């Protein structure tokens, strides 16, 4: 299975993602933001980081970079595109997924482990996962998901909410919402469910001795779903 990770100026989770994808069997290529063409891929990942120094709005400059036109075309033709953290911010700026990510509610950079609950397994990312609650890591300043009332209704009606912040038992409550996101939303899909944007980092949870294994579970399942 072939994957591509896009590196923007200021990306800093691109190599972590490369390590994670290779560990679980992907033949991964790193792709520079200034390239025109995507290599043949089964999965494209927009990694975390601080592309373009978060100038203007997080992800806004990266969303206009050269390679993104190919990524948008790939997504529109049904290809799997996953944006993690800054990658999620880039996805919302392209309009591939609805909404926007605002500054965290209490104006602090949040760096900690969180639990997330899967809402929808009818998609290539979570299908066949034998867990509903996963422990991932978050590290962001702008992860406060916001959308208009009309958009919220639409994403609910279309089952586009991918994951919610919750506690270890899967309770989705305000006290487990780290950043003020509407309805505890941590990740969302596009209408067709081939594009996934989420703030948590599964690539930071691929080693039991360093962190945890829930990322391993996620990536193993993902490659099996794509095969």
């Amino acid at each position: 299975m072939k994957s591509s990770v896009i590196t923007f100026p200021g990306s800093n989770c691109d190599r972590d993602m490369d390590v994670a994808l290779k560990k679980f069997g992907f033949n991964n290529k790193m792709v520079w933001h200034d390239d025109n063409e995507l290599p043949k891929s089964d999965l494209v990942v927009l990694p975390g980081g601080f592309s373009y120094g978060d100038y203007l709005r997080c992800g806004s400059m990266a969303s206009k970079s050269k390679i993104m036109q190919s990524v948008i075309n790939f997504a529109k033709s049904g290809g799997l595109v996953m944006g993690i953290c800054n990658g999620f911010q880039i996805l919302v700026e392209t309009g591939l997924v609805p909404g926007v990510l605002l500054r965290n509610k209490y104006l602090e950079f949040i760096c900690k482990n969180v639990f997330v609950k899967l809402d929808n397994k009818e998609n290539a990312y979570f299908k066949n996962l034998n867990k509903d609650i996963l422990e991932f890591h978050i590290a962001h300043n702008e992860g406060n998901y916001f959308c208009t009332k009309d958009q919220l209704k639409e994403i609910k009606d279309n089952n586009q909410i991918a994951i919610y912040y919750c506690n270890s038992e899967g309770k989705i409550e305000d006290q487990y919402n780290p950043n003020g996101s509407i309805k505890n939303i941590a990740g969302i899909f596009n209408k067709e469910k081939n594009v996934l944007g989420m703030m948590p980092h599964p690539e930071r949870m691929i080693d039991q001795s360093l962190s945890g294994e829930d990322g391993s579970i996620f990536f193993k399942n993902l490659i099996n779903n794509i095969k």
Partner: protein
Amino acid sequence: MKVSAIITLKKDVLDPQGKVIHQALDGMGFENISEVRQGKYFEIDVNENDPSKAKAVVEDMCKKLLANLVIENFKIIETQ
């Protein structure tokens, strides 16, 4: 000619930075404030002499990059 664009957050979008600035101003003795909202200001020198054309170009920029219309409004002002 120079055209300015002011980007502001829409009314129903939370502006935590504005809130903190409000609190700080309050603490400094500026008590007669009901709300502070923070925004962005751009000054763009467009190679165009026709004001309406120059404004139209900046409007297009606002829609495509400078503002995110999910959360922000923009206002265009001809400055020179």
